[in-house]
């Protein structure tokens, strides 16, 4: 398992070979507020990087979540159905969204590491 990588849309991805786990960042959950529903993709769906694959509903509004990388969805986090607030309490661990078999692992290498993402977030807040 590699360290987490991050996108400018505030998603994270962790990769082990070509198997990846994806979620939204702690910063993102904090900005969205109380999350009451997460619409996840179907297992087996082939997604292209950048395509809308999930919808996160907070009390206030619905937000799209985009595919961090291209590949095939292999598993979704069923726990979010009964307890969407897991995304608030554990965004970067138990609150993961879906697992992906990567079709182009190089896409992940181009993403930000933790330091770069922190700097990106600090820049957004300034």
């Amino acid at each position, binding site marked *: 398992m590699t360290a987490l990588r991050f996108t400018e849309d505030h998603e994270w991805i962790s990769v082990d070979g070509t198997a990846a786990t994806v979620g939204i960042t702690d910063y993102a959950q*904090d900005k969205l*507020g*109380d999350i*009451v*529903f997460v*619409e996840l993709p179907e297992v087996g769906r082939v997604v292209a990087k950048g395509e809308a694959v999930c*919808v996160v*509903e907070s*009390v*206030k*509004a*619905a937000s799209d979540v985009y595919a961090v990388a291209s590949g095939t969805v292999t598993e979704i986090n069923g726990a979010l*159905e009964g307890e*969407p607030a897991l995304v*608030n309490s554990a965004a970067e661990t138990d609150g993961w969204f879906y697992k992906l078999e990567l079709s182009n692992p190089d896409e992940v290498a181009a993403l930000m590491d933790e330091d770069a993402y922190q700097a990106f977030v600090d820049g957004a807040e300034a």
Partner: protein
Amino acid sequence: MAEAESDLKQTVLADRHAAAGARFVPFAGYRMPIQYDPKRGGGIVEEHRWTRTQASLFDVSHMGIVDIVGADAGQALERLLPAALADQPLGSQRYSFLLNQTGGIIDDLMVTRLEDNLWRLVINAANRAADLAWLTRNLDPGVAVEPRDDLSLVALQGPAAGAVLAGIDPAVDALYFMQAGTATLAGTACALTRSGYTGEDGFELALPVDRAGAIADLLLADERVRWAGLGARDTLRLEAGLCLHGHDIGPEVTPVEAALTWAIPKRRRAGQDFIGAQPVYRQIQDGAAIRLVGLRPEGRAPVREETDLFDAAGADAGTVTSGSFSPMLEAPIALALVKADLAKPDMVLTARVRGRDIPCRVAPLPFVPHRYRRRTT
């Protein structure tokens, strides 16, 4: 509404909101707290639940307080409001609305008789300019329209609100739902009403702007009281089945369509002597084509404002006017304007959300029972 951050006004309590970790949003020309820091007991759901179990303090100073003063001011106001003002007891409050010529709701408001010839209106922030223009244009020149920019408005709402405030000034114990009085808070006499926008017992307090900070500090010193923002205010009022102007009601929606006919007493229906009376009277007699209802969508996904609704045959049924998630029911709830023949309990309509059909059951309002302190109970 796109508003440049720098053009926004703020209330006199802004520093206290910031110190409590508020997240601000632009709202009706003001920079207002939508919620407070989740790491310190804030967040819309937590603030909502706190209001239903303890007491929350809301800064609603963006709303307009307008005094109507003059000989026969009540009679003059009756031309603009379909409430029974002329015989309204001193110190009582009513829910009413300004109607246009077609019976549409220019704004909804609270009207309190403070003195024989002094009436106080609390109006929506977004409609302030339009309301003032309408009032000035339609009231006799002898009746003064006085915006009270020297007052801040805060709401203390929740089952503990009565005990908290009575602990500071026992005089509030004499007040029941929709009654007005005064209380001495931090040495300052303040006008207050026992009412609000959450469905809970509580108060709206008009505070001199230079005393608002000290009085807010006094209220918050009670451990039963926490700040709550506009986010929780919206989910609370939706659970309580209370309309939000500009969403559920507006200049194109009449009180009959909005199921607010209860706010027009018999004498005013019979008299038909207020602006908009004839179209409203006709709808009371003949029924309206559309009606505001509560909806309980199936599943957990909120069905949002402007979502289209369909009947069993797939024909247009209406539109969602407010939609969110109820923290108390842990389920989505909504208000919708639907065709009158579909506005029946347990009627199932279909909402189309992101290409998926969600069954929505027409449900009685309020979604969560009101817990006002009524004299009769």
